[in-house]
């Protein structure tokens, strides 16, 4: 790794935490573009700290409704029955209360009754937001993202003789190297990046709200102009129709699948930043479980799929026209990240 000075490290650190001033942010961006060590430092920092995202694993990220209801019930119930002086006493008692690891039977009973009462009292005030409802909301937001991207694709095709966004590439390129700065490594996401770079769609719509991308640094116009691809996989959680020959990348007049939530087969392999150091993915051989997996973005219940006619549908399975699996290439059982679709009609959404 090229050596970075202490000051350069501090600037990158400030930039990572979005605490850099304008001048420092500009210095950081220049370092990231020109200094191999800076990019390595930033990636390592990001990779180490992104482990913090695991704190939310299998936990309810949102506040349970009963807790809010209980909190408000405690405040208002006491206030309305006993007046402000009593409330003050209760508040002081609340603050002076020792934390205990076990509650008594009577306390538990009293709290249970209080919660039950609070649920009745406040059911008219609060809209119950269940986990399932949140999942549906994320699904709808994801659908909206894909609809916006579909509009961008249609507008792009209208401006480019009916062609899909596509950069120069060739069959056999590693389509999974999202964010690679090497010119010969044409990730399949570079095609879609054109929509961002040329102003058809904002970068934020490429992240499904149902996924776990964690904190992302907002890209400004200067960064977008200088990048040839999404910075890394966290900035694009969708998979796009594999383009192996840009000359053949026409926006189909019939309805074919163009984009979907993350292809689950390659998801795990692409979460390791050091994968960019390799030329090929460690071989992935399909098994029965992999052939049934849905994208993880929506609790593995299915995936939103965007079609070339601009429509977006949530599919509980992976098969489209004539049993075509959108996440695999026909006749291909082992993948190293350089495969191509068997034909133009074979839908293969990657990475």
């Amino acid at each position, binding site marked *: 790794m090229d050596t970075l000075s202490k000051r350069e490290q501090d600037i990158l*650190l400030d930039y990572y935490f979005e605490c850099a001033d304008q001048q420092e942010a500009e210095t950081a961006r220049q370092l990231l573009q020109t200094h191999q060590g800076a990019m390595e*430092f930033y990636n*390592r920092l990001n990779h*180490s700290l992104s482990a*913090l995202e695991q704190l939310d694993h299998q936990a309810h990220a949102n506040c349970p409704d009963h807790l*809010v209801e209980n909190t408000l019930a405690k405040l208002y119930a006491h206030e309305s029955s006993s007046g402000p002086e009593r409330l*003050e006493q209760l508040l002081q008692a*609340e603050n002076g209360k020792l*934390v205990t690891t076990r509650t008594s039977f009577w306390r538990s009973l009293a709290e249970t009754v209080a919660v039950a009462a609070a649920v009745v009292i406040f059911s008219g005030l609060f809209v119950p937001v269940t986990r399932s409802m949140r999942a549906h909301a994320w699904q709808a937001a994801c659908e909206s993202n894909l609809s916006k991207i579909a509009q961008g694709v249609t507008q792009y095709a209208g401006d480019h003789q009916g062609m899909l966004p596509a950069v120069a590439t060739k069959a056999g390129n590693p389509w999974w190297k999202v964010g690679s700065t090497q010119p010969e490594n044409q990730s399949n996401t570079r095609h879609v990046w054109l929509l961002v770079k040329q102003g058809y769609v904002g970068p934020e719509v490429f992240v499904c709200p149902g996924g776990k991308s964690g904190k992302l640094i907002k890209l400004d116009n200067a960064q977008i102009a200088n990048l040839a691809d999404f910075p890394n996989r966290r900035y694009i959680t969708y998979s796009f129709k594999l383009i192996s020959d840009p000359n053949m990348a026409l926006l189909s007049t019939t309805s074919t699948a163009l984009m979907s939530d993350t292809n689950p087969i390659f998801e795990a392999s692409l979460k390791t930043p050091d994968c960019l150091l390799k030329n090929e993915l460690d071989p992935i051989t399909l098994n029965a479980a992999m052939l049934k997996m849905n994208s993880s973005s929506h609790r593995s219940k299915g995936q939103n799929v965007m079609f070339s006619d601009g429509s977006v549908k949530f599919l509980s399975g992976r098969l489209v026209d004539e049993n075509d699996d959108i996440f695999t290439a026909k006749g291909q059982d082992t993948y190293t990240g350089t495969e191509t679709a068997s034909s133009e009609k074979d839908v293969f959404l990657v990475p």
Partner: protein
Amino acid sequence: MKTNINHNNHKAQADEQDLLHRYVAGDKEAFQELVNRYKDQLYAFLRRFLNQQQLVEEAFQETFLQLYRSRKTFEKDRPLRPWLFTIAANKARDALRKQQRQETVSISAMAEPTDLSIDDVMNSLKSYEITPYDEAAKAEQAEKVRQIIGDMPANLREILLLAYFEQFSYKQMADMLSIPIGTVKSRLHTAIVHFTKRWKSTTTDGNI
């Protein structure tokens, strides 16, 4: 686009100012709206900080109790979010101290910046750990991260969570924690090194 964002930010700030004025005047609906607006952020912060449901719920309730109690003295033009997180962090630290007294076990002593170098730690990361594929391995990894965070000194844990998840500026964190900006930076630096070293040792032990 930027204009719209600024416009939206200003609008959100204006909405919040209106809510705060109404809350100070004793409007319960405004108070409930403030609770609804911040409940998820605060809950997530406390859950990461305390990782024990009972402590999380008590600190959550006490934070909003304090907000409610402070309505007569609250400065209406002060931004609410940093103030709420300051209270929540205090409540979380209190909860840890109370637990420490009860269990008579040193859970998280305070730690001040050391001469550890980020560069050293970053250089030691010759390879990245493999992200586990199956759910069981993910759960195991998550538990290890929780353990590392749980074992961190409270002041390092606090600043790491405030900076990483809540994205407060150095200035805001300095105000919230009543420490100079230089101390914020060095403490955050130490927290990163602390976390990274332990995370690295966990992953290189072959446990994941």
